[in-house]
């Protein structure tokens, strides 16, 4: 007998799965079979999707997930300025060929996944959810990275400021830090502002 308690599914995962119909989905593809098949199946899943062509980044500024037909970007040199450093939405590349030009383009766009046409209805739901989940995770990592970088930069600056004050006042590094902290308290400012001022002035303000 197997007796188990409910798997401890991550809350954010079960929330995503429960509310996938709320995802804002947009299809960047010209009118035609691919677009119709995808729209129809998304509708079957209870999702709604807007479509447009040519692929304008403004049209997808406020959506959660984008399907993009990649071939025209190569064949007709249709411009598409997707910010891979800070993408506005999850990206699923619609692939109708697998040749190296298509593959390179898809990789360069840093799509979260691809979907093949002709469309196979099986797999679309999991593709949408996995892509969106991957996108959110990447977004979280990006934000964490930015925070950590800021903290590192700040701590490097603090070391620099400690050295400046220590030399200027003729005290130890620890005493220098205490002086910086005291200065911040006296002036009711943040330590980072005093540190910035020290680095600029060469002494405590």
């Amino acid at each position, binding site marked *: 007998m197997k007796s188990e308690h*409910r798997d401890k599914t991550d809350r954010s995962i079960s929330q995503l799965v429960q509310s996938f119909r709320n995802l804002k989905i947009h299809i960047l593809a010209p009118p035609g079979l691919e677009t119709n098949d995808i729209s129809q199946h998304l509708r*079957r899943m209870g999702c709604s999707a807007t479509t447009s062509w040519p692929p304008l980044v403004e049209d997808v500024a406020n959506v959660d997930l984008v399907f993009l037909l990649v071939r025209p970007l190569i064949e007709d040199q249709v411009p598409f300025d997707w910010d891979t450093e800070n993408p506005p939405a999850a990206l699923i590349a619609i692939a109708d060929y697998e040749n190296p030009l298509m593959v390179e383009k898809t990789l360069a766009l840093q799509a979260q996944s691809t979907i093949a046409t002709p469309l196979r209805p099986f797999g679309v739901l999991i593709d949408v959810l996995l892509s969106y989940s991957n996108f959110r995770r990447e977004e979280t990592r990006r934000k964490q990275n930015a925070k950590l970088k800021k903290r590192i930069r700040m701590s490097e600056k603090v070391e620099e400021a400690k050295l400046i004050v220590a030399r200027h006042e003729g005290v130890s590094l620890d005493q220098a830090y205490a002086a910086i902290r005291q200065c911040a308290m006296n002036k009711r400012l943040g330590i980072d502002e005093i540190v910035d001022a020290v680095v600029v002035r060469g002494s405590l303000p």
Partner: protein
Amino acid sequence: MFKATQFAVSEVNAAGGINGEELELIHFDPGSDLVYYGYLAEKLIAEHGVRLIFGSYRSSTRRAVKSVVERMNGLLFYPTQYEGFEYSPNVIYGGAVANQNSSQLAEYIQATSGRRIAMIGADYIWPRVASRTMAEQLYQDGGAPPTDIFLNLDTPREDYDTILKHIVSTSPDGIYCNLVGPSIVHFYQRYHALGLNPDELPIYSLTTSETDIAMMGAEAAQGHVTAAPYFQSVQTPENQSVVQRFQDWLGEEATTNMVWEAAYSQVHLAANAMRLSNSVDPSAVREALMGAEFRAPQGLIRIDEDTGHTHLWPRIGRANAKGQFDVIREAVSSVKPDPYSPFVCEKNWSMRIPVGALGEEAL
């Protein structure tokens, strides 16, 4: 399932077949061998000229046949309730999905029972999804089922007493049971042998049917509840007539059940589509099936163009002393299938107590 199909084919042929041509039924039984399902489905299409296949029960067998009909341009008619989240242009789904059985049962449980519902099911995909779906519906505001057990299909009968005692030890108000096959018989019979009381601890199921009751005995089943679009006792004129004709055909002991009714209806829907399109080509037949209606034993059903599933009439039945179900709740109108519905779905149905069932509700 096979008897239903056979019977329906005999009715179609008796009525003149398809524009004069008789339907020929070729039957294979793959047992429980998954690989054999795919192999025989291929054989039917490649060697026997079959294009329309009726059958399969478990999700794994449906998938095996689905991939054959998708590849070889056939059409599978699937009559069984299942976990949903599937679509194929080569499959017509005739059984209930969660918003046509589980949702109504959850509503009934919330209205008539305490919150502690133990869950037990067979250990494969469908019961696991079914348990999770019920738990999400019942425990939307927090909490969890007191037990959540999945049994191997070959769990020996001797183990059931321990399992039942364990369930009872958690003081549940009800048991949600999605076992299949012989496990159902073991579970209900051992429940009965332990002297448990269905009025205090009802078993709720999406699968337990007249066939299972015939095997376990009416006494073991009495008082327990099943949610399904169809019971043999459904009081539509179509059903009363069909059951009579079926018993004339097979014998008066013959029973019908939810899968029987779906299989029966699907044969007639297919026959009508073939007549309408004057073709046996699966694409033509499928096109004629989209939106097609049929006065089924359960009521007027319709094949949903969006999903290839079927509009059905959810019902709730309580097993009685005669081995049949008393229908204690029925849908006011047919419910559109929503196979991709999340666990907790918007309520788009309404259930009523059937006229004449009011006496039951005094319990």
